[in-house]
């Protein structure tokens, strides 16, 4: 491809460095254990996330992928102590630096400050009746405790940081006056307002054109490298994971089926669902003969099989798979997989 210009942005060494803050690292910020969130439905309780266990360290970019309805957003919200009705916590724990996020007082203190979220649809979280500036100022006064001149200075600094030209002018704009990419930047600026240590980005580029997506991802990448912000990148785009993240967590039907550094997962996916996903994605950088896809249909979440949820679509399913769901097990020091056909090599 003639378009192959020198590639400055995402630092290649992130791949090698990714062995870093894996699950057992000492610098844990976020610890989730056995988290289950249920939604009552006519056909019984649906587990939005089911016994989810995850640790995130500092300076980490973790990708979360999985098909629609696999529990990615429910997980992101639960980390902030937010379970939207009719959903409810059914068990497990979420700890931020050791503090219990399921305690509303703790969650209220941490949310928007140490842990911030970028929601998929900026129009939902930007108030259409207020200018960008009014919203940012309010946030900075309420959450960051800034007063007087410092407020306006910080507003401009934030917009500048996310690459918005003429920030002083843009503060007077309403959300609908901004393009999609610009709104997404304002969202990121809002999320960064209080210098979070963890940013949960729920499909932050879905619906944006690729050239704008590239700008936004580059921005997030630079911010996380320069400011050391950890990012939980929820996406359905394996390209975004491969180019942006250090580790990836693959989810299916509310459960984690695999988690490992990206180099491992992309080179040698272990869970049959991860493998199927990778084989479903056409490549922009080469001609591929056939897309293998994954046979079968996504699950009806209210009617989970009693065994592994992927069993009905799994090309490798065996006798045990239909009986009980496999646990997420550590099969190497960097990789966790929930599959009866993969287990730790005998040591």
């Amino acid at each position: 491809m003639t378009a192959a210009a020198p590639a400055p942005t995402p630092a290649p060494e992130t791949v090698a460095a990714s062995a870093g803050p894996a699950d057992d690292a000492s610098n844990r910020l976020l610890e989730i254990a056995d988290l289950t969130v249920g939604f009552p439905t006519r056909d019984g309780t649906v587990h939005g996330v089911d016994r989810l266990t995850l640790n995130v360290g500092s300076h980490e970019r973790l990708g979360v992928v999985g098909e629609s309805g696999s529990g990615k957003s429910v997980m992101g919200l639960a980390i902030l102590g937010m379970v939207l009705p009719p959903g409810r916590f059914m068990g497990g724990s979420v700890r931020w630096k050791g503090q219990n996020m399921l305690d509303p007082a703790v969650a209220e203190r941490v949310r928007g400050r140490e842990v911030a979220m970028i929601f998929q649809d900026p129009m939902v979280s930007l108030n259409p009746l207020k200018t960008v500036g009014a919203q940012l100022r309010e946030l900075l006064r309420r959450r960051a405790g800034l007063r007087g001149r410092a407020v306006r200075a910080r507003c401009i600094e934030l917009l500048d940081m996310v690459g918005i030209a003429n920030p002083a002018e843009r503060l007077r704009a309403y959300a609908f006056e901004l393009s999609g990419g610009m709104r997404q930047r304002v969202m990121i600026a809002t999320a960064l307002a209080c210098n979070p240590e963890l940013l949960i980005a729920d499909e932050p580029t879905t619906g944006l054109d690729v050239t704008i997506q590239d700008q936004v991802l580059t921005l997030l990448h630079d911010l996380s490298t320069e400011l050391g912000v950890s990012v939980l990148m929820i996406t359905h785009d394996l390209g975004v994971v491969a180019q942006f993240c250090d580790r990836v967590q693959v989810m299916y039907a509310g459960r984690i089926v695999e988690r490992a550094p990206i180099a491992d997962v992309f080179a040698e996916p272990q869970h049959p669902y991860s493998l199927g996903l990778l084989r479903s994605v056409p490549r922009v950088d080469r001609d591929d003969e056939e897309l293998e896809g994954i046979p079968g249909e996504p699950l009806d979440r209210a009617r989970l099989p009693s065994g592994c949820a992927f069993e009905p679509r799994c090309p490798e399913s065996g006798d045990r798979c239909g009986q009980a769901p496999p646990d997420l097990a550590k099969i190497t020091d960097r990789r966790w997989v929930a599959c009866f056909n993969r287990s730790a090599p005998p040591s």
Partner: protein
Amino acid sequence: MTDAQNPPAPAPAPAADDADDAGGGGRPVADGPIVEGRGLTVHFYKRVGSRRRTVHALDDFDIAVGPGETVGLVGESGCGKSTAGRALLGAVRPTAGRVLFQGEDVTDLSRARWRAMRKHVQMIFQDPYSALNPKRKIGESVAEPYLVHTRLRGRELESAVIELLEMVGLPAGAAGKYPHAFSGGQRQRAVIARALALRPGFVVADEATSALDVSIQAQIVNLMVELQAEFGLSYLFISHNLAVIRHISDRVAIMYLGRLVEIGARSDIYENATHPYTRALLSSVPVPDPASRTAHIPLTGDLPSPMDPPKGCRFNTRCPVAVDQCFTDRPPLEERSPGHSVACWVN
């Protein structure tokens, strides 16, 4: 090649007797294009305050789709892809330019004549849910084209519907169920079944797989490829996903703000991209492989408004290589090598 004096083409596009694999691209095959747009221009008028503004949705657009061929159409949101597809199907009347179907000028056909044309040209949309009437059983929706355009009734109709459902991989029992009982992928199969009921020669697929999870997207792409081989279909495949376009297309057309900027065989576009916009677009796609880095030719700024397109080359506000001429004169689409045309003063 194309001959406007061709006798009116005989009705149903015959299934290609030789399912010939035109192989990787080049020009439309033997007996001329099945559908052709010449100088297609579509303007919309929009009130902004007290002024009437012109939206330049499509401008002097030339395209030809050969029998059994897939032409991919890409470009950023709002660049006119859907408008181009709709103009080729007579769903929007062009402000200027001609539409030819099998050599016959159909631009000024009456509404009634266009309705008859529906047998030969069909469209598949992004959102299969809105394309199917939620209050009608799948079987009824799929039978509709037969009821409108043929005399098939009763038993014969029933078995034709079941045959169609099986052809797209749905169980015969699907006929008796309502759309809400199906997943997005299954609904898209039903939409494809209905679109193909009358064996059209030409199908415009507008973001037909964009709303689907990747594993299901792969299934639907594969299905469309199989059906094309079986029936000698021609596709105009509209998508913002450059990887899917690479996978499915023989030729690829790149649009920017209502104009074609580059068109060529798949290899011309993906291995020898020439227009700076094509290059930037391709370099922005995150490659789903951590070992291969996305090239990143960053484009600054956003898409200008189609109500006020820049003079000269419309890409000049974002182009990294623009020279003076680009701001004054419109670059013509010129053939650089057989079948590969580019509209650029510089590259």
